[in-house]
């Protein structure tokens, strides 16, 4: 059993939004109190309370929305302070981090000394905390919360330490298990000690894997060992421009040097990055950030992407300095670092972007920008225009696209022309009145003449209406259409749609 030291910052969600522990404050999620300060707790505010109830108990309660990002960000300060003492820190969640206590305890002269040292360090960093040492993470967390600022549970004493705790700590530990605690309470098992006394085989048979896991926790056995990771070295590179670079050329030149530096650092670690974040800061404080796909890009290619990024933000015909006073710094940060497995070219049967194609695409992207040249991906959808997604060459195909079925989709051969913006059309019956579709999908009269781009043609065949009522739950994006297929006497066939009384040519079967 490994000895674990846990640093616990009380009421971290409240601390993170900047509410002082001495005043009554709470953070709420969807109208329920997610966390509150000690002062608020003294007034009777509890976690899970409705905001109304909390404010009734404590009218001067300071209420904030929960900010998960800030929690993670601020907790980095605590982690860094702890990492000054011992580098192997595992962040369990914002507000709670753990480290293996064995080695550091020997170095700092005992577990109690280490515990106090860590606590003092965090308090010096500006945050209140408790710290505890015990066998395993679960016991150590409770030890950190126990007493005045935590305590040390002697080796092998975890079960005895845990025994008096009520079962509710099992589900406050990590989300889930309220049913288990509730069921056990009704069975007359009220404390962790009672629960631990049950035979483990019976617990597993009655409560399943999750119950067995909880049972291990209650007996002071750890379900998993601590997995502290060595903090990845910061591989991002940065260059400052003084005076601010007013020519894009200068920035691009700097980017080339930075990219070479970055690639060297990545190669030294045997790493590759999936994406690259390019950030450029301007003299007036603007920052341009964009993620680029980095699949074995050369330094030159990275510099080229920086150029596109700068030119993309330029107004037509203008210069960078006209807008934001020149670039003062440039940063390249590798994102999603993975071990470099090398690149494997496909033998046959799979499509690879050959060098020739990649070169041509690069040249076109240099001319027209990153979005200028695309590869189509067929996806599901009802209308012909929704069935294709255009992905810029070099970007990954979007994943998680919705799959069918698509009731009401247009079947049969696909149309050869799908205009980006449907053009308007007029469809009239024999008496010259516009053909309309009622709410019950009844066509007012058989269409006789179709006018597209001012040229009328007699209708020779038609079918419809095929109603498509999409996203009716979303007032901004909902669309209600009825589609028709129409052939005319000049040999053309159209997919028409009527929306709000206006006919459009959605596609042409050219």
């Amino acid at each position, binding site marked *: 059993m490994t000895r674990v030291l846990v640093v616990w910052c009380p009421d971290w969600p409240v601390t993170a939004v900047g509410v002082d522990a001495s005043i009554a404050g709470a953070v709420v999620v969807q109208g329920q109190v997610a966390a509150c300060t000690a002062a608020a707790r003294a007034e009777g505010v509890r976690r899970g309370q409705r905001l109304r109830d909390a404010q009734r108990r404590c009218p001067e309660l300071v209420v904030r929305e929960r900010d998960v990002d800030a929690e993670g960000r601020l907790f980095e300060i605590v982690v860094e302070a702890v990492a000054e003492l011992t580098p192997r820190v595992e962040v369990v969640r914002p507000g709670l981090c753990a480290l293996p206590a064995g080695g550091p305890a020997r170095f700092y002269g005992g577990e109690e000394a280490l515990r106090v040292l860590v606590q003092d360090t965090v308090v010096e960093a500006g945050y209140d905390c408790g710290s505890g040492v015990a066998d395993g993470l679960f016991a150590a967390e409770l030890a950190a919360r126990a007493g005045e600022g935590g305590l040390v549970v002697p080796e092998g004493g975890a079960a005895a330490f845990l025994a008096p705790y009520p079962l509710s700590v099992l589900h406050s530990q990590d989300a889930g298990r309220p049913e288990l605690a509730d069921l056990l309470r009704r069975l007359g098992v009220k404390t962790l000690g009672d629960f631990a006394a049950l035979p483990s085989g019976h617990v597993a048979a009655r409560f399943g894997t999750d119950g067995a896991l909880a049972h291990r926790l209650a007996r002071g056995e750890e379900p998993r060992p601590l997995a502290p990771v060595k903090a990845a070295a910061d591989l991002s590179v940065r260059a400052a421009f003084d005076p601010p670079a007013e020519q894009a050329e200068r920035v691009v030149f700097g980017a080339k040097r930075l990219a070479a530096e970055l690639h060297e650092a990545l190669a030294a670690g045997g790493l590759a990055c999936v994406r690259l974040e390019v950030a450029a800061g301007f003299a007036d404080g603007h920052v341009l950030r964009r993620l680029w796909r980095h699949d074995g890009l050369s330094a030159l290619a990275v510099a080229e992407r920086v150029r596109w990024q700068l030119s993309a933000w330029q107004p037509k015909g203008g210069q960078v300095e006209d807008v934001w006073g020149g670039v003062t710094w440039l940063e390249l940060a590798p994102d999603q670092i993975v071990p470099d497995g090398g690149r494997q070219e496909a033998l046959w049967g799979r499509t690879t972007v050959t060098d020739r194609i990649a070169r*041509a*695409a690069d040249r076109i992207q240099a001319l027209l920008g990153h979005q200028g040249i*695309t590869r189509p991906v067929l996806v599901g959808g009802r209308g012909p225009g929704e069935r*294709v997604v255009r992905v810029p060459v070099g970007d990954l195909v979007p994943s998680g696209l919705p799959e069918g079925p698509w009731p009401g989709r247009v079947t049969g*051969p696909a149309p050869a022309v*799908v205009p980006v913006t449907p053009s308007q059309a007029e469809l009239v019956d024999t008496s010259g009145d516009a053909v309309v579709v009622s709410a019950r999908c009844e066509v007012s009269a058989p269409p006789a003449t179709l006018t597209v781009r001012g040229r009328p043609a007699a209708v020779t065949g038609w079918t419809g209406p095929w109603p498509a009522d999409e996203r009716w739950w979303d007032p901004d994006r909902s669309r209600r259409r009825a589609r028709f*297929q129409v*052939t005319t006497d000049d040999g053309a066939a159209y997919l028409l749609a009527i929306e709000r009384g206006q006919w459009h040519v959605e*596609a042409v079967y050219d």
Partner: protein
Amino acid sequence: MPEAALRELVLDSAPRGTVPVLPALRPVVPGGLRPGSVVGLDGLGAASLGSALVAGVSLHGGEDGTGGWCGVVGLPGFGVAAAAGMGAVPERLLLVDDPGDRWPDVVAALCEAVDLVLLCPPERPGAAAVRRLSALARKHGCVLTLTGAFARDWPGTRLRLRLDDVAWDGLADGHGRLTGRRVQIVAGGRDAPGPGRRARVWLPAPDGTVKPAETARPPLELVPEPVAAGAPVHPRPSGGPPPVRAEVEEGIA
């Protein structure tokens, strides 16, 4: 290179020297398109013809016949789904929807990489651009396929394709749905001399592909022999079957 050697071992090398077309189009473009040539598409059905040519290259093109790359320039409405239905592989399509006035540079870049460029010039092509792009296409063996309003303004077009006898199937008065279209593809120009070549195909067939339309051939008919004055009514001594004639422009060959 061992990889290339393996490829040659495993795959029959496609007949080199031409840019392949779909089997259904072989009667009008026998042997495939001439590399580096310019093909013009006209009138009704130009988009379907373009999709069919793209599908042919995408399916049978490339250095080893396992599939070539195509570029589509200036056609934001290109029906990818239709092309895919005819057999094109979307992964091997490069779309430049809006090249603006840089279209000659875009086509020049694509010519060096892909086997076929489907181009809709956004403006009347200038003589210099025509000369430059034609030369580049010839040099790299890339077929330039022109469509749109200015397709006729490209000098040196060796092959022109258009549709004739268009008939849609499946649609009636108020019911049914479009299932397929029977057309006659007419090839003209220097690469199809004389009256041109014709073929009846489904473009598209009910399953979205391009198929020869054998069923569309008109039935054979009996032709009575011209009767000379005073000849007996049944003059044929050998008793052979009466001569049978098919429509000449049907183009069985």
